[in-house]
């Protein structure tokens, strides 16, 4: 599957307090969380972005707290995915567990500019800058994580496990 969207650019070490400030964590309603996505990094983000857009950021995206509300807010805001130089580990885990597409690609993160259109092949992780035509290959998803995705996320995997046990 190939998705096209506009790029919103952020820097290094974007933390989960910026992605979804703790003052909004008195709910886990995705629609409510989506209203405040990226608010403390860019208060205008939710007004500027269109569903299907991408975030492109530097290293260590999603550092800080373990709040799964961060990938939930981004996904519910309609973001197609996040491309970053690298991801903080809890955010990386959470994104897979709840199904936000993420791509690790330092070269794309460094070179793709904000406002540009890109297309991303969600299966191969090949990112194309539609302005320059340049292609980038993101780091392969580990086979175990692919299996999780194929199963439909971690809880689907757990459901299979529970059903097998009670059968």
């Amino acid at each position: 599957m190939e998705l096209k969207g506009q790029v919103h650019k952020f820097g290094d070490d974007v933390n989960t307090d910026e992605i979804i400030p703790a003052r909004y964590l008195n709910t886990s309603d995705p629609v409510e969380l989506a209203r405040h996505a990226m608010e403390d990094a860019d208060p205008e983000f939710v007004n500027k972005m269109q569903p299907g857009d991408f975030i492109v950021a530097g290293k260590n995206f999603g550092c800080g707290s373990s709040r799964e509300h961060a990938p939930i807010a981004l996904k519910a805001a309609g973001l197609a995915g996040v491309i970053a130089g690298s991801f903080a580990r809890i955010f990386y885990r959470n994104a897979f567990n709840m199904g936000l597409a993420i791509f690790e690609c330092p070269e794309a993160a460094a070179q793709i500019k904000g406002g540009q259109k890109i297309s991303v092949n969600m299966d191969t992780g090949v990112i194309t800058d539609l302005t320059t035509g340049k292609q980038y290959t993101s780091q392969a998803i580990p086979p175990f994580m692919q299996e999780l995705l194929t199963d439909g996320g971690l809880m689907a995997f757990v459901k299979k496990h529970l059903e097998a046990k009670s059968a």
Partner: protein
Amino acid sequence: MPKPQTITQKILAAHCGKDYVEPGELIMARVDIALGNDITAPLAIQDFHKVGAKKVFDRSRVVLVCDHFAPNKDIPSAIQCQQLRNFAREQDLTHFYDGGDMGVEHALLPEQGIVGPGDVIIGADSHTCTYGALGAFATGVGSTDLAAVMATGECWFKAPESIRLVYTGALPEWLTGKDLILHTIGDIGVDGARYLAMEFTGEAIARLPMADRFSMANMAVEAGAKNGIMAPDEITLAYVKGRTLRPYTTYESDPGAPYLFEKTYAVGGLEPQVACPSSPGNVVPVSRVGDVPIDQAVIGSCTNGRIDDLRLAAKVLKGRRAAKGVRLIVIPATPLVYRQAMDEGLMAIFMDAGAVISPPTCGPCLGGHMGILAPGETAIATTNRNFVGRMGHTQSKVYLASPAVAAASAVAGRIMSPKDL
């Protein structure tokens, strides 16, 4: 000859039925304790029910603590705590902490002996890595991971590579574990240990009390680490004795165990450290912070809300008052710490210093309640993060330091070392 392993490898191996795990290896490990709080557990409970799970894997090993926005700060927060309370009742959980039992989770669990050496602990809270100070493998996960563990008692991990951080020499007066971890994060950066196990060792660690060790392991995540860990020694075992609710196993790294890199810090010449806005990696010695007037000083949190931390703050505050215009907020991390502080006369010292004493809560650390900052305000805090907007308005600022520096700064009205007071 078996291959030499780090303490982290050994604990993970023991929890997946192996003698050895290779760094980078994906394993499914048995979990000893799974933790959630009033922010992260509601999502986990929802997921748990969604997959048709009926019973948690072990009612004595799933721990729920209402500490973040509790005492309930508003109606939505009250509802989140209610979801935990209902689930705890439905599942008959042994360890549910609410109201007067409640303490800041990462101070509470070790204090109550719920976690111990050699455990594998996951928590839907990034500072779960705190328990590494006991010689356990402890790491933060998200709510979905917590839900999966509540249902199955297992969690998948990629066994991390380790780095070895050696602290040599003797700590000068006023230096604490907080200063050592801030200095380390300042050195290696906020992603300097991304995905890695930070193993703390050396003679300075060997002399460090448990409270300081907890502060250090607590902030491993601020360097991006999967876990922070220290091999148990006599100090650990003395702490665990009489508390631990389960038998435990101690592990240590083998000579020749693999480390991605090693760093040595001579602590003898260190000054108290301060992390300036807006990153825990933006660290300077207190003498180089410059002239920074403050509006608020917060002493508490899972990093520095233990009795040793309050004693240290009281040592600075005794016979002194917070400067006019400075709001000093002291938050004992658990009911036991609160009572100890009362019994030892620390509360009187704090009140004489003009402090507000809060019930145990995470509260202002994450900008929840009990001390939120207005635009343009500056706080010094013994907490763990100083990101933009962390303690309130996005135009407020947070400096991170030890209880000694926070207390001295409250008295001076500006950031100051206790030795200059």
